[in-house]
């Protein structure tokens, strides 16, 4: 108890194939953010300039997996984080981006970059700097082991707060009525 609670929990967060709405919901804890900062410190996160995840107690991942870069980042998180959380609909199920799974990539590509009437001069982006897209969008658990799933698009700030405070206090995280919803 004392050992765990004295040390700050080190937390990494990232957004993969998501919209940042879950990170915004994390900020929707509002002024409780300052209380949280008494108990956690951030590693890699869109809120810091740490570019790679180091050893962490907790990794929170928003968004599904849509390209090779997402896979690398997710594996880096899994390798470094004792606890890995899939936060929000896209991480849990693939979410709205997975609506593209029934489409043929090649055909979409042609329509967007070659035949779309708003494009002046057609060309398909193919530079090696662009990560390879996957055929389908995948939820996190199809690629790595996931310890907790928080549903919602996005999960409400109160749910994220309850989850984090449970973990910080050494309790098994449990979201009660009203904190679990899927919209």
């Amino acid at each position, binding site marked *: 108890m004392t050992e765990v609670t004295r040390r700050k929990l080190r937390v990494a967060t990232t957004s993969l194939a998501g919209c*940042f*709405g879950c990170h915004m919901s994390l900020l*929707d804890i509002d002024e409780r953010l300052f209380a949280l900062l008494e108990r956690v410190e951030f590693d890699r996160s869109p*809120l810091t300039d740490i570019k790679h995840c180091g050893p962490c107690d907790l990794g929170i991942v928003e968004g599904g997996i849509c390209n*090779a870069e997402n896979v690398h980042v997710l594996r880096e998180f899994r390798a470094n984080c004792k606890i890995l959380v899939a936060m929000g609909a896209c991480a849990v199920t693939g979410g709205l981006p997975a609506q593209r799974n029934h489409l043929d990539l090649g055909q979409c590509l042609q329509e967007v970059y070659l035949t779309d009437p708003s*494009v*002046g001069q057609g060309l398909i982006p193919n530079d090696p700097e662009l990560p390879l897209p996957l055929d389908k969008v995948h939820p996190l658990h199809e690629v790595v082991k996931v310890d907790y799933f928080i549903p919602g698009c996005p999960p409400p700030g109160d749910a994220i707060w309850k989850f984090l405070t449970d973990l910080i206090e050494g309790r098994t995280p449990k979201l009660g009525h009203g904190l679990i919803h899927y919209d």
Partner: protein
Amino acid sequence: MSTLPLETAAHPGQLRRVVIEPLSRVEGHGKVTLLMDEDDHVQQARLHIVEFRAFEKFIQGRPYWEVPVMVQRLCGICPVSHHLAACKALDQVVGATTLTPTAEKIRRLMHYGQILQSHALHFFHLSSPDLLFGFGSDVARRNIVGVAAAHPEVARQGVLLRKYGQEVIRHTAGKRIHGTGSVPGGVNKSLTAAERDELQKDIYQMIAWSRDAVRLVRQLFEQDLETYRCFGSFEARTLSLVRADGAMDLYHGGLRARHADGRTIFDHVEYGHYWEQISEEVKAWSYMKFPYLRALGHEDGWYRVGPLTRVTRCDFIPTPLADRERREFMAFDDGRAARSTLGFHWARMIEMLHAAEAIKDLLHDADLLGSDLMASGPRQARGVGVIEAPRGTLIHHYRVDENDQVARANLIVSTTHNNHAMNVAIREVARKYLDGRKLTEGLLNHIEVAVRAFDPCLSCATHAIGKMPLEVQLVDAEGAVVDSLVRGSA
């Protein structure tokens, strides 16, 4: 092959690659690559948008009334923009050429709530660490946690400004993020007196804090005028919506484009035929397209959108405190701040103040409590909706078939308009601050400071889809193949 300076190196294979990846304290996925020669001179600098999501394609075939709640999932920071731009387009499809006063005012309230929260988030949570601590300051504290420790009152006001904007959205849209309040033809909810009273309670504090934020940026300029005046700055054409009388109007207006020196390219253009003014170019190294003004062609027709454009290109801001700040901004340093890339921050805070004032005015308007929420009229096959999102002009365009299904969609988002301008900004910074020097983390952050000035929303910009030039297999934790990429499926 482009001839633009530093866009494409002559012999990339012989150069050393430096990458800033991922861009941090911005929304979405992007990276910057630099190619350096053996004397540490920058030969190429590019901002790449590296994700793709195909929103325009997968909404095809969906019933049109699903669209406003689907497309807002492009972006969790400015979902209201997409929600409202889609509704504005689909208003035309359902024949609602004029909304009821209650519907239009509820939507405006929602939109100004979003401008307030998004601008607060960008300035306080994302950009203020660079501005308060220095562009090359210690990476360990260059974040909102560091700001909370060193400037607790600034951090607290930022958090509470954002909270207030989110509460305005919750009361008008039903949820803080990805709400459902606006529908084609109107809104599905007005405010109760209790909700209005709750929002009225804190609005004067928000106006006061927004003014403080404008003054904070002014102080930052005054403290280091030489840097702020020049950093990443360049001459650019501009595009924005303005009201018929030339006022700033973030919800509705006509298109205004100007040259860098202020001469008009076009003005008060009805946006229903935006494609006659704007076209898009594709470059091999980014999934984000490069829009340009047709009249000037793809080499010269690029332009800049967003707060800096809106504040400097409107004739006036229709709320008094923000307009006074606009005039001071325009006059400051002989007008140089209004042309500088870091002037984006100043302009953004002026808009935040305007949003707070506009919210105050709306909260004293009895129409907010009305019950006449929906309008309709003769059905149309096509609709275009344009709005000034926090980051700039946002265009949604839909065609809906006789079965109520979306037949075609085209979206040009704010950050896409700024694609070329952001690339120019990073090349300016690379040339001035990085060229010929040994690159350190702090120097590389200068590139990101230039990108952040635009407040890019890279998720928004990734609604298109990309190419798969190689074959790769994705395996799960047990080593089983989950997915594979097929060579040449394009």
